[in-house]
């Protein structure tokens, strides 16, 4: 099924959109180019053969010690009862003034709104075009991104020793 979707995307958007397919997982993963992510998302949602109308989950993965992050999208199609895993990989040097940036899909699936805020909050991924990107689970004045593998807790929070 996944190769069929890959062919559809290549036919609909172009060769550069798809990077590769990883087959050695229980669910095959379609790795796509970050630049055409929004186009692919719209295509997967609206094309009759795919119809992935339900976004289950977005999770951000840190591949420390590599300077690499991945954003994984788990899609489901309610009429066809199928599932698809999309993945975007980004290289980044982990500096706080240079967060990894990828386009937001919250205009395609509104589920992405809060999931992207969570990824921004905990992993420090910046989603361009997100309507309301601020921290969601942690306080607004929190420093750092706790789910990154190189995260170290602060010594104090508002003058209170927390270690």
């Amino acid at each position, binding site marked *: 099924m996944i190769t069929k979707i890959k062919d559809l995307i290549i036919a609909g958007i172009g060769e550069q959109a798809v990077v590769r397919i990883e087959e050695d997982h229980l669910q095959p993963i379609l790795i796509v180019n970050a630049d055409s992510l929004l186009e692919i998302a719209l295509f997967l949602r609206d094309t009759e053969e795919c119809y992935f109308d339900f976004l289950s989950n977005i999770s951000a993965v840190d591949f420390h010690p590599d300077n690499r992050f991945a954003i*994984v999208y*788990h899609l489901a199609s309610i009429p066809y009862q199928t599932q698809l*895993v999309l993945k975007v990989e980004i290289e980044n040097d982990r500096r706080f003034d240079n967060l990894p940036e990828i386009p937001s899909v919250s205009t395609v699936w509104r589920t992405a709104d*809060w999931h992207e805020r969570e990824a921004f909050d905990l992993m420090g991924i910046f989603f361009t075009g997100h309507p309301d990107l601020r921290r969601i689970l942690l306080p607004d004045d929190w420093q750092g991104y706790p789910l990154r593998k190189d995260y170290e807790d602060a010594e104090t929070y508002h003058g209170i020793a927390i270690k």
Partner: protein
Amino acid sequence: MTHYTKGLENYKKKIAAITSQEMVINMGPQHPSTHGVLRLELITDGEVVKDIIPHLGYLHRCFDKHAESMNYGKTIPFTDRLDYLSSMNNSHAFVMGVERMLKIEDKLPKRVEYIRVLVCELNRIASHLIAIGTYGIDIGAFTPFMWCFRDREHIMNMLEWASGSRMLYNYIWVGGLFYDLPVGFEARCQEFIDYFKPKLVELDDLLSNNQIFISRTANIGVLPADVAINYGCSGPMLRASGIRWDLRRVDGYSVYPEIEFEIPIGKGEMGILGDCWDRYKVRVDEVKESVKIIEQCLQRLEADFKRTPDFDPRGLVPKKVNLKAQEYYIRAENPKGELGFHFVTQEKTDVPRRVKARGPSFNNLSVLPELGKGQLIADLIAILGSIDIVLGEVDR
């Protein structure tokens, strides 16, 4: 740095820019009808809610980070604390994901599977009873709340008998169970079902067809199916909008394909399809279906998969979970909706690189600003109650 904090600045500007007619009201985090520590910042014009800004995180414990620092078995008690009203269902989903990656799912004894489904469905009833009871109290009906808690206590006692703990069980393990069911459990469970069935009819008479209750819930908070799907709503939320989507049937995990049950959906009996009453009614109907599932499980457990002296519920429990580096997303039907776990495993260690929990309440709650806009404050309470959130899972 500035464009990273732009969202925050926009939010502050929005609050600062309200007109003199409007007022900001903080509902929560200690508001009784938010079912936990949820803070809703309302921009109101008189009694009408113009905008809702939910603030989460008061119960945040970073489950993901915990799960990344210990092995899979040790994470199971943490999954219990996600949606603490349906701990069995949480650990069932988590354990199933690990078992599928280990490829031992098909080797599990049928008795183990039936016991899992039995305790999960008992827990589903307990969770829905809380949803129904507290919803009644949100609207102003006190009696159903007491009735629901009285019946729920029987389930809590039974599950405590099986697992040793009242709410946070750690009963379902990777590759099996903590213990077999205690001797006499099946008979007591049957006794409970016989007691509970007429109580359900009573509850229906008291609340579902109550004219005051209908006036407060019918035609309020209407959630069309397309909006529900787009916001990632699942479980009773989605089904109340008329979509027959139940992962127990769609994915057919565990022994659910061998069990007969219906998937109740909203029909718009009292008002428009997808209103608060429909969401409430779907939960009541699901309790009835769960009773059917439990009866079938008990029947199979007493006839085909009887307790035998050589039955070892821990027979397949691995000493160490050795997985190759891979990714897997498991989803399962919780009382609140689709609970998912995204695993990213690493080579040569039994500590995962990443475990992300996708809580159904988190996604169901995100539709609240859409549902509540333009409603009265009193109706907002009715809408929030019908979403049935558990903050342990929203905040994780």
